[in-house]
C-alpha cells in the first residue's frame, strides 16, 4: 500500500501515488464496465462506454479548470492554465459534473437499466480498487492490526472501505438478478451508504 502524499518522478513530471492509483482504478472500473455490459449483452454497449469515457474527461477538465471557475479573472493570463488546477471542493465538483453528464445521456437516450447498473458497478469497483492501494490513516486504534505511526496503531480505514465495497459488490452480483430493474443500482447505493456509516467512527 502507498502513502497518498508520496510522489515519484516520471520524466519531467512529479506524480503522487494518489493520482496514479486514481488513474489505475478508473482503468479497472472501465474494464469492469466492459465485462459487465458484454456479459449482459447490451446492444447500446458502445454508446454507453463512449458516454462513460466522456464523463471521465468532463471530470478531469472540471478538476483542471476549477480554479478558473472560482476566480474567472485568472482567464486573462493564458499562462495560468499551466499553473493552476484542483483546490478545495474540486474533486466533488468534478465527480458531480461527471456523474450528471452520464445520467443526462442515459435519460436522453433512454438507455435500459443496465446502463445505470453498469455505471454504479463501475464506480464501486473503482473505489474498492483505489482504497486497496492508497493508505487512509484513521484514528488511534485499540486493536493490534493497523498502520503504525509514532508507535501508535491507527485504523487502516482504506482497507475497511475496500473490503466492504468488494463485499457489497459480490453480494449485489450474487443476490440481485440482473433482470431486476434498477435493483443492482439500488442495492449498491444502499451498500455504499451503509459502508460509509460503518467506517465513519474510525476516520479522522
Amino acid at each position, binding site marked *: 500500500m502507498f502513502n497518498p502524499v*508520496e510522489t515519484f518522478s516520471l520524466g519531467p513530471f512529479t506524480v*503522487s501515488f494518489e493520482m496514479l492509483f486514481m488513474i489505475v482504478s478508473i482503468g479497472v472500473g472501465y474494464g469492469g464496465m466492459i465485462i459487465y455490459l458484454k456479459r449482459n449483452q447490451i446492444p447500446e454497449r458502445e454508446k454507453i462506454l463512449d458516454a462513460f469515457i466522456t464523463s471521465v474527461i468532463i471530470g478531469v477538465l472540471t478538476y483542471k479548470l476549477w480554479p478558473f471557475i472560482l476566480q474567472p479573472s*485568472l482567464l486573462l493570463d493564458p499562462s495560468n492554465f499551466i499553473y*493552476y488546477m484542483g*483546490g478545495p471542493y474540486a474533486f466533488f465538483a468534478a465527480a458531480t459534473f461527471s456523474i450528471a453528464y452520464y445520467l443526462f445521456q442515459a435519460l436522453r437516450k433512454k438507455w435500459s437499466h443496465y446502463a445505470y447498473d453498469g455505471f454504479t458497478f463501475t464506480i464501486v469497483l473503482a473505489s474498492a480498487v483505489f482504497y486497496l492501494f492508497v493508505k487512509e490513516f484513521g484514528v*488511534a486504534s*485499540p486493536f493490534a492490526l493497523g498502520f503504525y505511526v509514532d508507535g501508535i496503531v491507527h485504523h487502516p480505514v482504506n482497507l475497511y472501505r475496500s473490503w466492504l465495497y468488494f463485499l457489497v459488490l459480490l453480494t449485489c452480483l450474487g443476490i440481485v438478478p440482473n433482470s431486476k430493474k434498477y435493483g443492482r443500482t439500488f442495492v449498491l447505493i444502499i451498500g455504499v451508504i451503509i459502508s460509509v456509516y460503518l467506517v465513519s467512527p*474510525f476516520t479522522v
Partner: protein
Amino acid sequence: MILKRLLLFILFLNIGLFIWMDLEQRKFEVNYTQETASMPQVGFQAPNFSLIELGREEESETTDSTDSAVYVDLPTILSEKEGAVIYFWTSWCPFCEASVRALEEGHLIYGDELAFVGINVTSQDSLRAAQTFVKEHNVSFQMIADETGIVASTYHVPPVPATFFINQDGVIAHRKVGGLTTREVELGISVLKRSGE
C-alpha cells in the same frame, strides 16, 4: 441458493464485526489521552520544525537552536496566532511565483489572525536566489530556510509549491500541492477556521 445465503451471512457478520469494533473504539477513546500522530496529512498533527529565518543564516552558527529571535518553530508560531499557513517554495519554480502573489494578498487580509510562513526548500535552491526572489516579489510575510531539506522531506515536499493550512491545535486542516489562487487561499483559510471550532 447456498451461495446467496453464504454471501448474506458474510455480509451480516461483517456488519456485526464493525458495530463491535465501534463499541470497542468508544471504550478505548474514553481512556485515550495522547495527541493525534504527527503526519503531513489532513486531520493529523503537523510535524514540528525549528528553522532559521531567511537572511540570518550566519547567526545560526553562533546561536543555540532554541533562540526564538533567530529560529522559528511551529509551536511558537501557533501560540501567537489563531493558525498558520505554511508554504514550501523554491525560487526556480514558476508555480511558486504565481502562488506567492495569492499568499501575499492573503497575508494582507488575514495576517493579523493567521501566521503566514514561507519555507524555502534551500536544499533544492540557493540562499542568494531565495533572498532575491523575496525582494523581487515584495514578500512581507516571514520566510525561513530549510537548508538541509529535512523539514521538506518530513512534509513530503517536493513537489513545490505545497501549502499547509494548520489550525491553532497544530492539526492540518487543508493541504494543497501546486499553484494557489487568491480564492483557494480564502477557501483554505475558511476550512482552517472551521476545523478549529
